[in-house]
């Protein structure tokens, strides 16, 4: 990739991020709803400790919701954005322009990372304001926070981009993805410890990045007494790195290929077909 496309892509991504921040519907529907849900849950039943530990339930939720923000932007917001780019023709527009595809990818990377940063910062701020959550004091905890956020992001962003190339349109993407994502949230220890769930459900949770990112964040924000409610009584940092890393590698192998294929397949005819289909759906 040349530096020119990189520069254009960075500016493009920033422009779209500012549009996202200014869009009242997106703010109210996505960002504020997620933060609001966390605040309500934390105040409603976060006042107690996790049974068998002296770890606050509301801090557990804060760590869980930070992890969920990352997954929700990457696995819901990003696929919707990519399908919208395909349906509206932004992808095709950039195909008509020299150096357009690398700039598009950089732009999307910027918007998704900026959105994740916004969500995480707001969720962290809400945690500090409404729960006993405190920022880590030890340098080691900060380091863990950074690598868990970075690797956690990398484990879901390529996956989200891949989903965006496979789903038919933004509305379908929303309806297809929201239920599994909510289910994953319930079983992944975002709101209560996974050890309260039956064994098979725990295995499902451990197959996906959300549980592991939450575990990594709990190791930063919760006392070691919380380990009494964790699987195996350990923070399992090596396993966390391995699972998140495996998802990241798998995503990075598949996503570029799918994105190239999606871009190559864009044409005016396909654009017309999709828009006709959308119009027909809208009529019913």
């Amino acid at each position, binding site marked *: 990739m040349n530096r020119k496309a990189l520069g254009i892509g960075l500016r493009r991504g920033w422009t779209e991020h500012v549009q996202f921040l200014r869009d009242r519907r997106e703010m109210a529907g996505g960002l504020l709803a997620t933060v609001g849900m966390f605040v309500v849950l934390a105040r409603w039943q976060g006042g107690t400790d996790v049974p068998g530990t002296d770890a606050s339930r509301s801090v557990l939720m804060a760590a869980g919701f930070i992890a969920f923000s990352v997954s929700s932007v990457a696995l819901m917001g990003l696929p919707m954005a990519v399908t919208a780019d395909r349906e*509206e023709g932004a992808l095709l*527009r950039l195909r008509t322009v*020299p150096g357009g595809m690398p700039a598009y990818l950089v732009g999307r990377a910027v918007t998704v990372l900026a959105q994740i940063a916004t969500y995480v910062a707001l969720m962290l701020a809400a945690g500090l304001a409404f729960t006993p959550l405190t920022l880590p004091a030890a340098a080691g905890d900060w380091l863990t926070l950074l690598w868990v956020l970075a690797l956690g992001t990398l484990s879901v962003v390529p996956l989200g981009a891949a989903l965006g190339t496979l789903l038919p349109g933004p509305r379908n993407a929303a309806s297809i993805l929201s239920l599994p994502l909510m289910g994953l949230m319930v079983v992944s220890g975002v709101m209560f410890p996974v050890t309260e769930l039956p064994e098979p459900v725990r295995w499902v949770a451990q197959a996906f990045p959300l549980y592991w990112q939450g575990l990594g964040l709990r190791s930063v924000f919760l006392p070691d007494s919380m380990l009494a409610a964790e699987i195996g009584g350990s923070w399992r940092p090596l396993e966390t790195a391995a699972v998140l890393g495996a998802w990241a590698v798998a995503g990075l192998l598949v996503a570029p290929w799918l994105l190239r294929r999606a871009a190559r397949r864009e044409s*005016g005819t396909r654009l*017309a077909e999709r828009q006709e289909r959308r119009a027909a759906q809208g009529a019913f």
Partner: protein
Amino acid sequence: MGATVITARGLRMRYGRAEVLRGVDLEVRAGEVFALLGPNGAGKTTTIEILEGFRRRSAGEARVLGTDPGKGGDAWRARIGVVLQNWRDHPRWGVRRLLAHVAEFYDRPRDPDELLDALGLTAQAGQAVGRLSGGQRRRLDVALGIVGRPELLFLDEPTAGFDPEARDGFHALVERLAREEGMTIMLTTHDLAEAERLADRIAILVAGSVAVCGTPSGLASVVRARSEVRWVEGGAVRSERPDDASRLAYELHRRFAGPVPGLEIRRPSLEESYLDLVRRAGPDGPGAAAFAADGPRAEREAA
């Protein structure tokens, strides 16, 4: 008229068992406005998408600005402008902002403000793209297509869905681009009047191949369906479409040894002739092959 900008030889496109293009031959020269005219489903958009490099052909040869469009890189892309029918992209971007963004990709772009002014979009410069009217949107698409100073501009059904006034304004814009900028323009349309008004040359695409190709006036004489000769004989109206209407009239006069009752010779309009051509050469029409075979001869005659 200068060098050849687009050459296509025996372009074929197959989707599964359906053959959309059955050997399209085209030649577009530098500086001309070339219209690909045909009914819906004739293969116009498929042809233009192959030439734009967005679709891989099943068979045949294609050269656009000296390069195989299936293999054109960024340098080739920079010389081509594309305006599609169905763009609804970047709805949240400001009009000027999007134009400036796309301009950045080119080495020697036009000034976005001058371009907005030239296309009558200055008042909408700060507006969100998604709030433009249909006509404004299409003008912005043209602005985005030409901001990089392309040598060749593709317009796919540029006035579909326009009211007559917007259509007229758009025609004037295309004429200005061709005249003042010397840009080569290839457009598709299903409207004969539009092709006649804008194009230096027209190729009529029917059922996946070029039926005829030539200048609008040349085309008129080639495409013209046979004249209809009607007369009254034995109390009934008779009608024929002979090869040579004048000869039939002469023979009738000789047979009647005087004036022929109810004699009428009707030359069909170009529009009627076009529709006749489309009907006869329709997907299942027996005339398709014959017309395809007529293509090169017709082109020579028209030229």
